């Protein structure tokens, strides 16, 4: 799990012990769902692609259920099986040119959550080369679980920030709301700030991982229906009750491109975006 993480707790008798339990759970989720670890559940599922079904537990099935909602609500743009597209673009390798059309076509043929065979106890990826990646969900899920673990252990006030996805509860110990800054997508400063006692803020942006090819920024947020990186927004921040919900809205809004505003208006959430031209849209007010 990349990025900077932060955990603030208040109102508890033993914050260190609570923090340890919460962090242990974050590490547990990381181990269980990282696609970079050979011993993870995700690695086992991906290794068996095209082969026999893999047994899964209730938590994994619930994550697949959540992934289905994201897939359906985004009309297929948000797809946890889009790993082949990320490989085709290979942002880590700092490419200097686009993948050729045949490579992209082949990658798209290995994407399709709708084809995944799964139920409450098993999952099977139907084609060799298909891969699942909970990267767009797992971090936010972990943040919500940190909030739950800490609250159940007695921390009445808290804030957890996992790589920019923030969940807060109970306000600050002095009774005021937490103040959460939103990063400017192009400058080293805050774009805005939001006061939040209970809730979550998540931001997706084209600045997290990208390459410039021919002067055009290609970011890591890829529309799984087209294989193309999105370009309509530099960043999108959404407030919701849960980090996982805020994260889904912010990422899918990026993927919805020109239709993002209508999508978010339907959701009746507060949001703040920076469009491709650098103009602020939406409002946290």
């Amino acid at each position, binding site marked *: 799990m990349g990025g900077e993480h932060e955990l603030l707790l208040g109102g508890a008798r033993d914050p260190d012990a609570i923090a340890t339990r919460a962090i242990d759970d974050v590490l547990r989720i990381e181990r269980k769902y990282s696609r970079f670890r050979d011993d993870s559940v995700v690695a086992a599922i991906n290794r068996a692609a095209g082969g026999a079904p893999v047994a899964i537990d209730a938590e994994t099935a619930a994550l697949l259920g959540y992934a289905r909602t994201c897939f359906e*609500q*985004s009309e297929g743009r948000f797809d946890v099986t889009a790993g082949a597209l990320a490989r085709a673009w290979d942002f880590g390798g700092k490419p200097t040119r686009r993948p050729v059309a045949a490579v992209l076509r082949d990658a798209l*043929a290995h994407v399709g959550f709708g084809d995944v065979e799964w139920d409450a106890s098993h999952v099977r990826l139907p084609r060799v080369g298909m891969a699942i990646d909970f990267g767009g969900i797992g971090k936010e899920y972990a943040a919500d679980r940190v909030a739950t*673990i800490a609250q159940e252990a007695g921390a009445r006030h808290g804030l957890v920030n996992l790589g920019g996805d923030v969940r807060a509860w109970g306000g600050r110990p002095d*009774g005021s709301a937490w103040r959460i800054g939103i990063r400017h997508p192009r400058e080293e400063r805050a774009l805005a700030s939001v*006061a939040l006692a*209970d809730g979550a803020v998540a931001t997706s942006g084209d600045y997290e991982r990208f390459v410039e090819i021919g002067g055009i920024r290609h970011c890591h947020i890829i529309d799984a229906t087209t294989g193309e990186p999105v370009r309509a927004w530099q960043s999108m921040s959404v407030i919701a009750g*849960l980090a996982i919900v805020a994260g889904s809205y912010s990422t899918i809004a990026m993927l919805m491109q*020109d239709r993002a505003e209508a999508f978010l208006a339907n959701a009746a959430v507060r949001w703040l975006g920076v469009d491709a031209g650098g103009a602020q849209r939406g409002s946290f007010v």
Partner: protein
Amino acid sequence: MAAIDGEVAAAQPCDAATRRSCEFARDGARLNPFLTAALLLPGVVPAAALAQSMPDQGLFSLQYLDYRDWQPGAARMTVRNPSLYVMTPFAERYTFEGSLVYDAMSGASPLWFDTLSGASGLGVTDYRTAGDAKVTRYFDRYSIGAGVAYSHERDFISRAGSLDARWWTADKNTTLAFGFAGESDYIHPSARELDNGRRHSLDFLVGITQNLSPVDIVQSNLTYATGHGYYSDPYKTLDQRPGERRVLAWQTRYNHHFTVADATLQLGYRFLADSFGGDSHTFDVAWAQALPQGFTLTPSVRYYTQGAADFWFGPPFPQGFVNGQDYTADTRLSAFGAWTAGLRLTRTFADGWRVELSGDFYRQRGDWRIFGGGSEGLLPFSARWFAASVSKTF
């Protein structure tokens, strides 16, 4: 799937593949599919936020209430009421709850809402002390509680016992409640001896609390009370009420928390059918707005309306009285509508202290009745009450 440009794909209208999203576009305002899906994930919301189970903290609360009512040209009743409440967990799986109340009442009538001039005694000062205690045992999926209550006034003694059981689902999203209470009252007015000033009643309750989402909760309770004995007002001449009474009440409350505004909308409705004949409806709405520094401000409005009892007769007194038949002129049993406006300010401190101030203003008129005609010839009746409370969790 061709590698078409993203903008082209985005501009396509609803087709077979996207129909679901089009439906979402219509339903989005009232249904959040992401939230629904997220709630199926283990541990994203504290179980305690979803439903009640064993409290892990105790609570101590002290409240002072000051009540006053009046009619045009006349101040009537004043009540001052300090009360104390304590709840504490003990022995792992038990809680104890207890409260004490002391009322000091003074004014023109021993009955708050009595408007029948001349039928009351002279100025009255009375005191009421009341207390109750309850022990609840918690199991993994249910709890059982037993309680007793006692109330004493100069001319009235009440004793009650209760049993209740609660059962909740494993996800704690649904709680069912069952309750049973028996009450025995003894009425012995100072003005005259009653042949049999006793009253007995049984109360039954079934209720459900359902979490619809982390921000929506609905609760619905059905209560039935049946009693027999002395229901008349011993301080009124010619007051003769039936010897038994059955009351069926259905109450539903719905709370919705607006995460964006950090506020909770509280809606309530109660329907009450009374064998005396006066059915009533109560509508409540309140908005609990969280503010900086731990403050919460809650404005509220309540509308109440009731029909007259079958044996109620309006002025001039004693119109409608027939010896041997049920009769009352008690305006509390008349037909009227009433509005209550209230404002409550709460401040919660980090160390568990909580201070609350509230004020409510009540006004009732015969012609504010809905679902039927209001009783005529009665003066408007007004009341106000202020309350201050301090509580601490421990």
